[in-house]
């Protein structure tokens, strides 16, 4: 067993894939309980899907550069948010429907582009990513993002917690507090786009949701949820990686996400704030 692990770790692509996963887990961990508490899971997923045309155009123009891919994704995201926001201004349609409509059009444009463009990458690689094919500069970008995320969240934690929990009370303390929520949203989108690099547009939201949900079943403070979701995220990467190496042709990204899903399921069944809480409070 130990020999097998050492042997696998001697392959650079295994080490890089694992490291990328650990960086992503660290980048998402401080954000994720806020993503859940602020109901951003689906909106975040939608934005990640909608990055597809931006990422593809950046890829066609500049190749596999991490920064250019990220910038392409970011521009697509900004466009989606701007269009959905402009449409919802004084509209009789609910804003989530407008976001849903906008992102799915972006996603389809991206799908058409990727399928009809003559590139070396196929649609699947854009959709579910290739953690094992991660490049050095992408790894650096992911690590830098993890650092930025942890530092930023350390700075804005308290005001953001107040704003999330009791917005009126927060407003009474911080008269110009818009930078707290805006800063959080920008950070969230940046981490999400970094995640697109490894997990593709379909799965990039996974590490923002699953490890934190698992953690919530065990923990009842924001900080302990953050630490637990980091650990669960790392576990999912390692577990997914081991499975991928054992089962031939198992795609790394989805396997890691499935592992995270399994951790959530177990946590939900066993944790004090999962199923047990539901059963106790209904009786």
């Amino acid at each position, binding site marked *: 067993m130990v020999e097998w692990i050492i042997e696998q770790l001697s392959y650079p692509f295994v080490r890089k894939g694992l490291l990328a996963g650990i960086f992503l887990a660290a980048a998402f961990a401080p954000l994720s*309980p806020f993503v859940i*508490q602020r109901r951003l899971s689906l909106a975040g997923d939608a934005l990640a899907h909608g990055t597809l045309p931006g990422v593809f155009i950046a890829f066609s123009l500049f190749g596999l550069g991490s920064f250019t891919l990220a910038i392409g994704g970011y521009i697509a995201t900004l466009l989606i948010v701007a269009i959905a926001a402009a449409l919802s201004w004084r509209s009789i349609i609910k804003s989530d429907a407008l976001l849903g409509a906008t992102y799915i059009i972006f996603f389809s444009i991206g799908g058409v582009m990727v399928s009809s463009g003559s590139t070396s990458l196929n649609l699947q690689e854009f959709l579910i990513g290739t953690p094992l094919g991660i490049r050095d500069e992408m790894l650096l970008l992911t690590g830098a993002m993890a650092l930025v995320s942890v530092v930023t969240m350390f700075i804005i934690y*308290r*005001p953001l*917690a*107040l704003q*999330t*929990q*009791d*917005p*009126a*009370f927060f*407003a*009474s*303390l*911080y*008269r110009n507090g818009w930078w707290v929520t805006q800063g959080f949203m920008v950070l969230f989108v940046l981490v999400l786009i970094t995640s697109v690099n490894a997990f593709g547009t379909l799965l990039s939201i996974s590490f923002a949701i699953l490890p934190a949900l698992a953690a*919530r079943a065990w*923990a*009842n*403070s*924001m900080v302990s*949820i953050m630490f637990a979701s980091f650990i669960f995220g790392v576990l999912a990467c390692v577990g997914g990686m081991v499975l991928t190496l054992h089962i031939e042709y198992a795609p790394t990204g989805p396997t890691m996400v499935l592992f995270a899903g399994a951790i959530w399921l177990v946590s939900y069944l066993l944790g004090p704030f999962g199923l047990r809480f539901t059963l106790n409070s209904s009786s």
Partner: protein
Amino acid sequence: MLTVQSATIGYGRTVVARDINMSVVSGEVVAVLGTNGSGKSTLVRTLLGLQSLLSGEVGWNRDEHSPVAYLSQLDEFDRHFPMDVTTLVSSGSWGQKRRGLGASSRVESALAKVDMLKFSKTPIHQLSGGQLQRARFARAMVQDSDFIILDEPFSAVDQRREEQFMNLINSWAHEGRAVLMIMHDLSAALRLCSRALLLGEGGGDFGKTSEILSSERLVARGYMSQTQVDVMHEAAHG
């Protein structure tokens, strides 16, 4: 401590209420009453500096750098936020520059005053509405401000607890703090508040609570219909 003169409040270009005059002095509890949409929340948001005054004047005679203590409405509050009671109560000192010294003892004594010490480690999602409101009162106390705004503090609180909260609010006034309270219960306003602001029909009346809450004014400001007032009188006089 607070003087409002011929103020017009509203948001954007929408005027909610005109010509509001009122004042709050230290050691006093002032009620704000009115129908839905009469401008109670707009007034509070204006006083907190979240909305600008459309015209008129708001004058503060206090250190404006120390924030006003504020008890927000319970229904705007995320009750499933992962947090225990002690953390919630401590968050009253988060926005303050002079935190640190004695903060934890202030939290403890505030918890004791609202009879919540035994719940100090309880996650807030396990509290009843009344217990949660008690914890939020404790947070307002930790803010330790000379001016306190309470937004419908008695919602989700049963009658017996309401009495306890009233005593607490009275004790704040005795300590020399000024309290402004949005409320619905007329009898509670009569018992607790020396003066009251009644908002409605695009304006407001301010003065001694017993005079402001007369049936004529309540009808004139749209707070009650004439029929409701008649029924009340019949009930009161047999």
